[in-house]
């Protein structure tokens, strides 16, 4: 026993040393692409013609609480970089994505962000969750790193406070207000009298609660009773108690600020309870994954979809995925969303280089603020940033699930 133990001790010591050595060996900043992502990491491998590769940092959630939509989003981002490089890169230079999974954990996000910015020297960054984007906002401002996150929290849209955060979709607050506008119209169109009652079924996180204050203010201003707030616990396997609470409150419309899997669970539970309630999904559950998971129970659900999987821009992305055999689990709109967010980030870099300016965070930020509308090929309305407003998109269309597909039911609506 003693011998065995000593051998293990020595073995562990050697292993620790080896790990340490390897880690130190990995420090020089000329690293191979870290964003292989399962599709043959050819990113940035070719010899660049117009200078060194441009480094873009990204953190993805592939194993954490929001991995269901995080995975197709990450595939979209990686695919865009590959596509761009295959088409000659940016001004003759290749793009290199430095990315890693952070499991939706704030400390991990801080660590990876610091590593990518200080050691790899990335010039722009693509983030993911609300909690971690807000945790990083101070550092982002200090480091002057233009940052496009998949979180559209309204708290990040004011350049006076967060000058380097850019939002490429309507803020969660706007999404909720647009959804409420639709709900009020729908109530009237159905010829019902009085006002409907609203409830929220949300992810139990800063992401879930982000739009509630603004949404409630809008509802109250329109005379609607104080909406009921019901958080759905992380990792729940049954939402019947939450739905019963909503039923007892008498809600007519339930707004879901959540990712697809828990939202699909809610729809299934609601079906078995026989609830006659209109469910409305905001961005992160209004996608094909919801239909895949909830099946027929998703029929009739309405969604605020800021990134339409139709339009020519989306076709380029989807065709590229088909050609390369990229498997994103059928979540077309989420894949297109990742692709589009990255394309906007790269558009800023491309324009900065075209204007003959040096590629610094400050220059890219100024370019974003002055370059005018960025065309996304019909995926979103043209995205415009200004020095006073970093919420690039203001309008979206409402969709409904009909025969297992999202179908647009309104034109572009904006919150104000």
């Amino acid at each position: 026993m003693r011998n065995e133990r000593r051998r293990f001790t020595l073995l562990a010591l050697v292993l620790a040393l080896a790990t340490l050595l390897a880690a130190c060996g990995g420090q020089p900043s000329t690293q191979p692409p870290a964003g292989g992502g399962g599709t043959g990491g050819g990113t940035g491998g070719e010899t660049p013609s117009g200078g060194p590769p441009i480094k873009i940092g990204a953190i993805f959630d592939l194993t954490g609480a929001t991995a269901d939509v995080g995975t197709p989003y990450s595939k979209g981002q990686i695919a865009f970089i590959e596509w761009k490089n295959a088409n000659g890169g940016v001004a003759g230079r290749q793009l290199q994505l430095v990315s890693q999974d952070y499991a939706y954990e704030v400390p991990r996000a801080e660590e990876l962000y610091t590593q990518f910015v200080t050691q790899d020297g990335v010039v722009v960054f693509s983030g993911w969750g609300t909690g971690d984007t807000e945790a990083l906002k101070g550092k982002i401002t200090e480091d002057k790193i233009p940052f496009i996150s998949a979180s559209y929290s309204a708290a990040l849209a004011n350049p006076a406070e967060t000058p380097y955060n850019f939002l490429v979709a309507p803020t969660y607050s706007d999404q909720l207000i647009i959804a409420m506008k639709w709900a009020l119209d729908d109530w009237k169109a159905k010829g019902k009298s009085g006002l409907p009652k609203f409830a929220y079924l949300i992810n139990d996180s800063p992401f879930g609660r982000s739009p509630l204050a603004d949404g409630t203010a809008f509802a109250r201003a329109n005379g609607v009773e104080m909406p009921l707030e019901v958080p759905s616990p992380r990792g729940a396997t049954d939402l019947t108690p939450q739905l019963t609470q909503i039923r007892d409150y008498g809600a007519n419309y339930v707004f879901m600020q959540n990712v697809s899997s828990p939202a699909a669970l809610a729809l299934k539970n609601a079906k078995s309870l026989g609830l006659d309630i209109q469910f409305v999904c905001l961005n992160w559950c209004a996608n094909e994954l919801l239909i895949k998971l909830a099946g027929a129970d998703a029929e009739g659900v309405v969604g605020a979809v800021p990134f339409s999987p139709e339009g020519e821009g989306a076709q380029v992305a989807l065709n590229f995925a088909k050609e390369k055999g990229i498997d994103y689990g059928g979540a077309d709109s989420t894949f297109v969303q990742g692709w589009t967010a990255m394309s906007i980030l790269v558009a800023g870099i491309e324009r900065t280089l075209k204007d003959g300016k040096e590629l610094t965070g400050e220059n890219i930020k100024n370019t974003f603020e002055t370059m005018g509308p960025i065309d996304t090929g019909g995926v979103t309305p043209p995205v415009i940033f200004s020095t006073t407003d970093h919420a690039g998109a203001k309008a979206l269309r409402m969709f409904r699930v009909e025969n297992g597909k999202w179908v647009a039911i309104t034109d572009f609506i904006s919150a104000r």
Partner: protein
Amino acid sequence: MQSGTFHTSYAGDMALRPYWVQRLRIALVLVVVLAFPWFADRYWLNLANTIALAAIGAIGLNILVGYTGQISIGHGGFLAVGAYTAGLLAVRLDMPMWITVPVASCVTALVGAFFGLPSVRLKGLYLAIATLAAQEIIIWLLTHGKLLGIGESLTLPRAANNLFGISLADLGNNDFVFYWITVGCLILTVIFVSNLFRSRTGRAFVAIRDQDIAAQVIGVDLFRYKLLAFATSSFFAGLAGALTAHYRGIISWERFTIDTSILYLAMIIIGGLGSVSGSIYGAAFMTLLPALLSNLARATSDVVPNINSYLPYIQQGAFGLAIILFLIFEPEGIVKMWRNVKDYFRLWPFSY
């Protein structure tokens, strides 16, 4: 015990580190600690700060679990109390860091003592569940924080980061400046806790751990000392939490969930229960493991294609594997492994 050392005075007998080898080692460690920030870049400074903060928290938990034998899975909640107390003081009352941090630590000590009350009646698993309740109650209060007027997250004003009127922002970059603060606090914590277990109070804690009924029979006031253990432990949790709040500049409850409590338990189990240096080893191990794995994957991604797509699973697996391997081969933790290595060389070439 080393032979050939004879204590000729009471002071020599009482010394915390009686042997010159130990003193030399402390001197060497201090030199490395003092030299490190001048050579490290921000990434490594960030990691070092994370380790130092985790180590303060882990030492706190070790006082309770390792030395006093009271299981707690509410440590994340106590960290949150420290962080939010410091945060609220800084935001609402514009207090500087040198006031908020001690106040937050004391408040956390009181809250910890309050949630330690069940320990008087409960032991083992039952106490674990009671502390789990503490964790959940604290996080519930924060997520439904309308009572306290807290939003989803709390941003601390930069101006709060000052020591006795000197603004930290003027002294250099955030990671560099906080290195001195976190490491300074860690050193003070280590000195305090190492000495605590040479005192009457510390001995009472250990007596309670080894056999509480016997301790009571020889005159240890169980009620008082159990609460004191909870308070001391929570004091350091509060210290770690408050420093985290000031260092990160923004806090949200997501940082202090049950997962955090379990991570801290894992740290002290892997590092070594009932050992101050073990807590530091454990904190370093748990912080560096994912970082080293991801660096390793990056370094080898030339040789092993697609390693990055497996990395998340490797990281998750490594965490569990590390705990299981330690429990099987070295339940006494890293601190015991270090001792084995020392013994091996000291006894070489004779293995006994």
